[in-house]
């Protein structure tokens, strides 16, 4: 991927040192702006809202929507506090109370925190990295629509009184069909998984954009810290969300079809759900924390008029957190009866993760010491963060200590700790970030005074509410209870908690009013009001969709926002304007950001909304229990994805482009290192963790779970033959595709390799279907049978997608679109094929081991 090959079609001049790229001649800034704006702007009116794919529009929209959901979640929190204000609070009955706290937790985690950080990152990263958009603009839009539609399903369920009420971590068997017969739990499983699509697509998008779209010469080791934080976050999301998605899929299969993954009577295990959930749930805390810390590391140095202390140490701390946090999930399961040695190990790991946190905290304090901090509004929120988060960290260490945890587990103490970490570690930094970037987003100045008032209300209200809840927790008040005995100490504390909760709400309302006033009525802000050095301020306010009229090379990246702004607007950077009427950006190499090729991004389109609607039709059919109809909804999904992929191809007439004097870059990289390929690699990484979690499930159910023994499965000769044939067919396809590729790249026709690959995949799929329907034991019989069937289904799904991949390439060959340097579809099909083959082989080995172990 790093060394572009020279192909006959284009002979790019690739300087080894981006610093030596000469500047383009200056042009009239206004002319450039008009040219770019025509190409990049959203369509007017409502249509523009539906078809927009710009990261600026979508980032803002993610954040605004997340704030609205925060409002809804906050409203629910107020209902909770109103109910708990008095001992025998009578205004919510138990069933409703359960729905309300479950929805409060789920909304805050899945519909507020995650989308909020995605939105901020989507909005900022291209600006900070010096490019014009994210790698996959249509994917950003798809993510948004999935988020919105999934969120609306959850809210609709809440209004209809069928919201889930099993707690935000949905422990089985309580959330299984027997104990939650209604559709409430299905709403959670399907709705949240739907929203998760947006998290995964955002993670892929951010990952690829950070690694491949940085301005030329911006080495990984020089990029803004915020980008490092988001790189860590994206990696954690790619590894953390698949276990949750897997858990939700399995639980939904149990509820819908009776596959007993978690049912102890039929060999399932409720603890499997807990492992899968916390495998996601613990990294989730750091997924939320890292972007917030990224905001702090960005804002603190500028407000102190100095540079961040310890850039390298912070990067190391981020990486440390990413790895350590995955070793920690068990710390949420201290009371399930886990061997002492394991507990000691996880206690140690839980505490070890405090070290990278401490490194960052001391780096920030050292920055404060070195500089001259200014007490502007964002700084107030930063102080609020220090004050709150450090206390949350302390109670966290208390919880990590096992004996103490046994006492405090599942009391109001945990609720209090959780909010100290989440509000201290996430909400305060985000509020700082919003205050910081509001001039950029709105182009206006703040109305004085209101923001400070909001801050004090929030700070006092927050500590009033939750500090007291530590105490009620220590007095033994359990969480998730709608009423409590009339114990005089408890009563007073709870009443005060509720009172301060309303104070905090007033604060958030003031904050919202402040934003609205600023966006609607503020005076126009000057450019770069904070005198920040970074590229995100080197543009007009509010920023145009294309961000930069030309892209900054190393000299302009160092020059500071003020100097860079003018030169960039006049087109002195790389790839100035949009003379070809296309949305063009530069793709650079992963490590050193050497320019590799020019990518042409898609224009405004309604396709993402259509696709999201098609997926939601599937989700709604599943929710309605129409399981035979639901697969029909997949037809439009597949069709739309096909159209999507066809539109992604670079125009046939695209010739190499001179991005700077003497530097000519191709539009199709000769070695196939396209953005799509990087995206596919990221997707396969996430897919791999999904598969690994499924294998973990297999091992757990086969080896660890107590319960009735696994019934025998006498796998006969037919099964052996069939599985051998499937493997051989998949291998045949995996060999055929590279052959076809080498034919194309040497200027010949694709040859027999491609149709053979297609036929082999189709046949493998048919065999797997026959095997699954005819030969496997009934998956409802025992959990081991269910996992086996799930694994076979996983391989089948991959064979089906491989069939589509090869069909797509075949179609391209038929149309004569495959040519040297333009065979991306074939390369990507090959990648998917290899993954499918590997997954099938591993599955076979795992199933064989399962049989051998008994």
């Amino acid at each position: 991927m790093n060394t572009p090959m020279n192909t006959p079609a284009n002979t790019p001049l690739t300087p080894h040192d981006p610093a030596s790229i000469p500047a383009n001649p200056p042009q009239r800034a206004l002319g450039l702006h008009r040219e770019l704006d025509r190409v990049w702007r959203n369509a007017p009116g409502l249509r523009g809202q539906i078809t927009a794919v710009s990261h600026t529009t979508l980032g803002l929209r993610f954040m605004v929507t997340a704030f609205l959901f925060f409002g809804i979640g906050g409203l629910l929190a107020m209902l909770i506090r109103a109910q708990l204000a008095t001992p025998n609070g009578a205004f919510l009955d138990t069933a409703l109370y359960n729905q309300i706290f479950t929805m409060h937790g789920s909304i805050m985690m899945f519909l507020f925190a995650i989308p909020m950080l995605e939105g901020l990152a989507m909005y900022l990263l291209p600006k900070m990295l010096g490019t014009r958009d994210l790698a996959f603009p249509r994917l950003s839009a798809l993510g948004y629509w999935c988020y919105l539609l999934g969120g609306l399903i959850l809210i609709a369920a809440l209004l209809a009184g069928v919201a889930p009420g099993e707690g935000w971590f949905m422990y089985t068997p309580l959330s299984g069909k027997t104990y939650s017969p209604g559709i409430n739990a299905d709403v959670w499983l399907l709705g949240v998984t739907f929203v998760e699509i947006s998290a995964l697509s955002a993670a892929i998008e951010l990952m690829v954009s950070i690694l491949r779209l940085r301005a030329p010469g911006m080495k990984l080791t020089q990029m803004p810290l915020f980008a490092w934080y988001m790189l860590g976050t994206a990696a954690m999301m790619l590894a953390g969300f698949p276990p949750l998605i897997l858990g939700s899929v399995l639980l939904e299969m149990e509820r819908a079809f009776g596959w007993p993954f978690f049912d102890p009577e039929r060999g399932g295990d409720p603890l499997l759900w807990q492992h899968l959930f916390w495998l996601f749930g613990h990294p989730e805390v750091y997924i939320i924390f890292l972007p917030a810390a990224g905001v702090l590391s960005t804002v603190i140095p500028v407000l102190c008029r100095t540079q961040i202390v310890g850039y390298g140490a912070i990067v190391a701390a981020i990486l440390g957190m990413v790895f350590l946090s995955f070793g920690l999930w068990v710390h949420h399961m201290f009371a399930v009866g886990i061997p002492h040695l394991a507990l000691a190990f996880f206690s140690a790991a839980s505490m070890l993760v405090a070290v990278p946190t401490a490194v960052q905290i001391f780096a920030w304090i050292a920055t404060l010491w070195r500089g001259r901090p200014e007490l502007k509004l964002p700084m107030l929120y930063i102080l609020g963060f220090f004050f709150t988060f450090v206390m949350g960290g302390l109670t966290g260490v208390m919880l990590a200590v096992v004996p103490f945890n046994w006492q405090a587990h599942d009391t109001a103490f945990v609720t209090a700790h959780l909010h100290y970490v989440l509000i201290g570690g996430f909400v305060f930094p985000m509020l700082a970030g919003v205050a910081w970037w509001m001039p950029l987003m709105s182009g206006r100045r703040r109305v004085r005074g209101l923001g400070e008032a909001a801050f004090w209300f929030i700070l006092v209200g927050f500590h009033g509410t939750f500090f007291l809840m530590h105490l009620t927790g220590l007095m033994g008040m359990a969480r998730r209870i709608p009423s409590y005995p009339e114990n005089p100490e408890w009563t007073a504390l709870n009443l005060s908690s509720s009172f301060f909760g309303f104070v905090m709400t007033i604060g958030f309302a003031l904050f919202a009013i402040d934003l609205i006033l600023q966006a609607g009525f503020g005076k126009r802000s000057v450019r770069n009001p904070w005198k920040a050095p970074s590229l995100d301020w080197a543009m007009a306010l509010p920023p145009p969709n294309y961000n930069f009229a030309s892209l900054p090379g190393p000299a302009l990246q160092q020059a500071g926002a003020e100097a860079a702004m003018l030169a960039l607007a006049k087109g002195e950077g790389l790839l100035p304007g949009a003379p070809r009427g296309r949305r063009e950006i530069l793709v650079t190499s992963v490590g050193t950001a050497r320019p590799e090729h020019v990518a042409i991004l898609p224009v405004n389109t309604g396709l993402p909304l259509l696709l999201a609607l098609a997926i939601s039709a599937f989700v709604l059919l599943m929710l309605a229990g129409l399981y035979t109809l639901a697969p029909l909804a997949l037809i439009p999904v597949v069709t739309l994805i096909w159209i999507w992929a066809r539109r992604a191809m670079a125009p046939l007439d695209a010739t190499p482009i001179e991005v700077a004097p003497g530097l000519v870059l191709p539009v199709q990289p000769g070695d196939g290192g396209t953005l799509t390929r990087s995206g596919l690699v990221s997707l396969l990484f996430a897919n791999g963790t999904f598969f690994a979690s499924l294998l973990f499930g297999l091992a757990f159910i086969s080896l660890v779970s107590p319960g009735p023994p696994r019934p025998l499965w006498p796998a006969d000769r037919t099964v052996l033959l069939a599985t051998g044939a499937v493997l051989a067919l998949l291998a045949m396809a995996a060999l055929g595709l590279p052959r076809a590729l080498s034919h194309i790249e040497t200027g010949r026709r694709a040859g027999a390799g491609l149709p053979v690959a297609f036929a082999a995949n189709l046949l493998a799929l048919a065999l797997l279907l026959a095997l699954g329907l005819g030969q496997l034991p009934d998956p409802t019989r025992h959990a081991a049978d269910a996992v086996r069937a799930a694994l076979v289904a996983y391989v089948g799904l991959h064979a089906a997608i491989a069939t589509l991949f090869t069909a797509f390439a075949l179609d391209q060959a038929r149309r004569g679109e495959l040519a040297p340097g333009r065979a991306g579809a074939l390369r990507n099909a090959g990648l998917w094929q290899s993954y499918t083959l590997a997954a099938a082989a591993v599955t076979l080995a795992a199933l064989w081991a399962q049989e051998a172990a008994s």
Partner: protein
Amino acid sequence: MALALMVFVLVALGFGRPRAITEGRWVFGMGVWFSLGVLSLILIAALWVGERILPHGPALEVRAHARQWAWSFSHPGAEGPVTSEGVLHIPAGRPVDVLITSTDVIHSFWVPQLGGKMDAIPGRENRLRLEAARPGTYEGLCAEFCGLEHAAMRFEVIAHDPAQWPPVSPEGPRP
């Protein structure tokens, strides 16, 4: 607490005049070594306490069985196990192992004053060591959310004078 105070004071001092700082001392000295030191101390203390409250040696075995939304218990009596609803009888002054099970969903056995807490998981049996120093009645509750009546899932532990163990009749004289 002292740690939190230290951080607050350091932050406050940051608002003074700018001054030269040594990066290494802050980031590695404070960030890595100092925090590692504090954490190891806490961990050692925790393991030491944890080890002490772990089951060592033999103990009297009683059973706690959870269902939505009530507890039943049993303890060894003069002739075979004696069962009781909502009340667990144990002797005071000697270690007791509670064997915890559940029929339906996950519950959690917790007696705040006696310490410790253990989940009741269908299909599994968990063991929790308790010791009541003095005879008396202790309040217990279910500490894992288990559905509608979760809040009402309370119980009592009655610790009897060791001299009167086993109690003649569970409903006998309360200490």
